[in-house]
């Protein structure tokens, strides 16, 4: 009973945060609502007995990724979202699409209910067991993931690197060019009067 009450409370917080993400016009407000959603989802993970995933959710998602988002929002000085004609068309299709998709999935799940239920406090996600699983059965995906992160780091650096400025001409050419520029500067005032 307590489990159900906590599930409904945190689920309502998560849905409210998600709807607020849609409603807000400023990216910073949307980012903070997303932090609320992620915190509520971490609580849901705790209810499911997945402490490790809950901790990782708070550390990686609510910590690292959202800090990156807010950093980019502040770096680019993102203002209030503009409205265009295309966005009205998108909203026209987006809201019925959202309702249709949500109702379809909910209807499917209610028509085909799961056999069992999930109990609280099963102590089913200890970090030790996950670590053993991760480093025995999933060792190859784990190593591939490290390669993926390495490529992502290099890609981010390459993409976000400012375009290299043009090389200044060698000093010898500048010395050769200078008399001409002086001539041009001297020649220009003659035209003005």
């Amino acid at each position, binding site marked *: 009973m307590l489990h159900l009450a906590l599930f409904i409370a945190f689920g309502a917080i998560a849905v409210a945060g998600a709807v607020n993400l849609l409603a807000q016009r400023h990216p910073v407000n949307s980012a903070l609502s997303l932090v609320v959603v992620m915190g509520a989802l971490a609580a849901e993970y705790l209810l499911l007995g997945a402490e490790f995933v809950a901790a990782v959710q708070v550390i990686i998602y609510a910590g690292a990724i959202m800090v990156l988002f807010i950093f980019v929002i502040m770096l*680019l000085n993102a203002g209030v979202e503009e409205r265009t004609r295309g966005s009205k068309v998108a909203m026209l299709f987006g809201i019925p699409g*959202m309702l249709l998709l949500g109702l379809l999935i909910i209807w499917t799940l209610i028509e085909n209910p799961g056999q069992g*239920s999930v109990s609280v406090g099963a102590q089913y996600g200890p970090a030790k067991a996950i670590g053993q699983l991760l480093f025995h059965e999933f060792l190859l995906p784990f190593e591939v993931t490290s390669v993926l992160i390495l490529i992502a780091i290099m890609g981010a650096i390459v993409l976000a690197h400012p375009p290299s400025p043009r090389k200044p001409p060698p000093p010898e050419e500048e010395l050769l060019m200078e008399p001409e520029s002086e001539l041009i500067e001297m020649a220009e005032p003659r035209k003005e009067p």
Partner: protein
Amino acid sequence: MVPLSYYLVLSAILFACGVAGFLIKRNIITIFMSIELMLNAVNLTFVAFAAHWHHLSGQVFVFFVMVVAAAESAVGLAIIIAVYRTRETLNIDRVNLLKL
């Protein structure tokens, strides 16, 4: 005791909100946040099934999804910075050409 379908319904609602944000929003950063919301909804499904079937593989998959999401957000935000540097806008409607 909470039925498994409740978790799946909550996940479906969050996923639908993410899809709607992806379609409605015009700010490229907010669209990116909608993608993260969809990934979170899928993670909830993974953890719910892991608890239901008493198998830890779902939680390991969530771990991988989080790692991929972190890499994706780093690269995606770098792309956003590169787009902003050339276009001076974050409105997705004004980024309609592939060439710079």
